Every structure is written in C-alpha cells, then in structure tokens.
C-alpha cells in the first residue's frame, strides 16, 4: 500500500509532521491499526535501526525518526488499545539505585518503543525490589538496567540475585548496559545479556523476548 510506504518514509526522514498527517490519513481509510503499526511506523523504524547499526546515520537521526514515530503513535495508540492489540513485547527499564544518569536508559526506551515494545520506564534511582516487582506486575519477561557510576554497578547483581532467589530467572531475563559496563561484568553478575549501545539493546531484547 503506497501510503504505508510513504508513512514509513516519513519516519525514516524524521518528518514528524508528515508522519502524523499520514497516520491520520490511513486511519481514515480504515486500514487496520496493526497494519499501520507494522507496515508503516515499525517498518520505518526498522530501516532506521539498520542504517544506524551500519553507521550510515547517527543517533540524532534515530531520535528524529523516533519523534516521527511518536507523532504517528499519538493517533494510533488509542485504536490499538481499543482493539486490544498488544505490542510486540514488554520490557521494564530503569537506572539502578544510587544513579541518576538516565540519558542512556531514555535512549534505549525510545528505541524499544520505536521497535514496537511496551516499555515500563521506572526512571532512575530504582531499587532492585521495584525492578522485580514491576516486571511481575506487568508480566514483562525482560528487565533492562542502566548504570553510569562504577559504584552503582553492583546493584545490578542484586536484581539478578533477587530474581534467582524468587525462582524467576527462567521467566524474567536481564539485560545490563551503561558506559562503564562490559560483557565480562554482565557475565560475572549472572545477567542474561549485555547491550553495548541502544541499537544493540533493542536486538538483544528482541532475542530475549523470543522475537529473533
């Protein structure tokens, strides 16, 4: 459908005004909301994600595209909710207790939403108890944790251990990320996965959610 391709292109171009207009237009044409989401907005974000992955474009371009996607979602979200159409998955994210640095976590959240996930963003300075409780309450199979301070990284281990103690490690996976983190640290604390940047985090969350 040509207009859906145009919508995807508006997202790729980061043209939020056009993305909003086209979303309204296809809604008016009675195109199913799930089709608009998958073949218009997410299709565009997938192209953007791939171009970012191969360094063809940069983070600001991804964020401009995300703004365009959100402009479309403003119109589409009520219809998706009304029809009970679930997004592709759920993720709880937060910056760990003792850490206020949330820019990286915000970027991951934006890109996860762009990929079609429902993101439960707990903000920053989040305790292990809150992380685990939110995942249980929302039925989210993935918890994403961020830290910038080397002294707050150990809080991630507390989340992993709490999940293990509550016998939830099989059902709820963990991904950790942040400037000072490494794959070795993720392995050491028993996290399921490590995301080295926002785009990689989306790929990893898809994998942990059984989507790729």
């Amino acid at each position, binding site marked *: 459908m040509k207009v859906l391709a145009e919508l995807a292109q508006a997202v790729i171009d980061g043209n*939020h005004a056009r993305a909003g207009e086209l979303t309204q237009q296809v809604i008016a044409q009675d195109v199913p909301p799930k089709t608009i989401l998958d073949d218009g907005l997410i299709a565009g974000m997938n192209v953007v994600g791939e171009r970012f992955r191969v360094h063809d474009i940069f983070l*600001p371009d991804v964020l401009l595209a*995300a703004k365009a996607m959100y402009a479309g979602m403003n119109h589409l979200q009520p219809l998706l909710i009304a029809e009970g159409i679930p997004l592709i998955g759920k993720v709880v994210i937060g910056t760990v207790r003792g850490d206020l640095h949330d820019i990286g976590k915000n970027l991951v959240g934006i890109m996860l939403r762009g990929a079609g996930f429902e993101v439960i963003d707990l903000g920053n*300075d989040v305790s292990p108890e809150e992380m685990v409780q939110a995942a249980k309450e929302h039925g989210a199979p993935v918890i994403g944790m961020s830290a910038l301070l080397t*002294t707050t990284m150990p809080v991630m281990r507390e989340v992993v251990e709490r999940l293990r103690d509550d016998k939830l490690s099989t059902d709820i996976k963990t991904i950790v990320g942040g400037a000072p983190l*490494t794959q070795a640290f993720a392995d050491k604390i028993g996290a399921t996965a490590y995301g080295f940047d926002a785009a990689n985090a989306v790929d990893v969350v898809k994998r942990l959610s059984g989507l790729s």
Partner: protein
Amino acid sequence: MIIELSIADTAPDRDAVLASLGIPTDRPVPEHIQRLYATASARFKETATPVGIVSEISSEDFAAVYEGEGYNEPDSVVGDVFPRTPHLALFAATLGADTSRAIAAGFESHDFALASMLDAVASDSADRAADVLERRYESALRQDGRLTEDGAALRYSPGYCGWHTSGQKRLFGYLEPETIGITLTESCLMQPLKSVSGVILAGPREIHRFSPNYSFCRHCETHECRERLRALFGRSHGDPHGEPS
C-alpha cells in the same frame, strides 16, 4: 569560596559533545546535526547559570570525608593518592536547575534529538566547570608558591574509581554546596543533575601515578582516567594505566 563562572568559562567543546553521541568529527558533520548542535548550544546559553564552590581541606579532615559511610572499595585510587598529597580542596560546580529542566521538557515533548544534544552539551559543560575550578585552585597554589611549575592537580568524584556515592554526605557536610543551589537526595545524588563534586588533589606530579590493578578497573569501560593521566604524564613517560604507549 563561591566562584562565579561565566558561560564562556564552561563553553562545551563541540567535537567532544558530538563524539559523546557517537558522531565522528574527522569528517564533515552533516548540516542537520550542525544545526541541532547550534540550537542546543543556544538553549544551553539561555538556561545555564554556572557557579562553583571550593574549600581547602586538610588531609586529616579529608580522611574522614573520604571514609564516608564505609562503602568505598577496599583499595581505591583516591584512597591511595590522597595520603601523599600536600594540598587538597573539596569542590562542587553546577549549571543550575534550568538546563536540567529544559532537557526533561525536551524528552517529554518528544524532542528527543534536541534533548539528547542539550544533555550532551550540558554534561560536557559541567565537566568544564569542574575543570575551571581545578585550574583556578592549581593557579592559586602556584601564586602562593605552594605548587611548583612541575606540580599538578587532578580531581576525583564520588561514584568513580572506588569512591562510593555515599561519600557525598560528608563532602556536603564539609563543603555546603547548598549555598550554590546543589542538594543531595536520600540516595546521595546531586540535584540539579548537571552538577559535579569531589576533591582536587594537588602536589608534585609523581603523586598522581597509580597502578591500574584495582578490582573495579577490570569491569570499567570508561577510559577518562587514562586520558587524564596521559595528559599529565605524556606517552613518553609510559602509560601509567598499563596500556601500550
């Protein structure tokens, strides 16, 4: 002592800001990103009110500040360097609350690209504010004849290199950064977010050498300390952090 800082004092470095967002600067930066940077810089100038505070502290008093709540790593850079440091000063600097509010507002209104660029500009600027305080303390020591030309000052902050964030409580108790508008949350985090605090350690250059074998170094991908030491010692001195020079 409260130190008024100008916007020019804390002007961000464009290449450093862009690099922090993963944008290479060894080739032409796309025009739309240049415009984004210019808009973020203008927003920064409208909102930032940089100010700092510095207070000298004796090694004995700093030992109590550094001990904090007892959560530091058993071995740490600051713990090793400060006992051999003749001149110490606590410091804090902030850009004020308006810049942080502008960043938050940008994200709320889905202006993600501008908000993240402003965040990067502000982060670089906050570091530069701390740099200014470090340089001014170093300069004052030189003027007083307490620091030789070969001497140097380096700063460290709670939350990094084994100094636990809970150390902020005693640091704030001594320095009182509330007088420049910085407060601590229950979790020992500073508000406004774009604030920096810590200790400046000054003395003969050699006091700053340390071995990179701390337990937390193995899992840390942040290489800023290496850059700072390279800047201090130069590659001809070998890499004090153990990397090939």
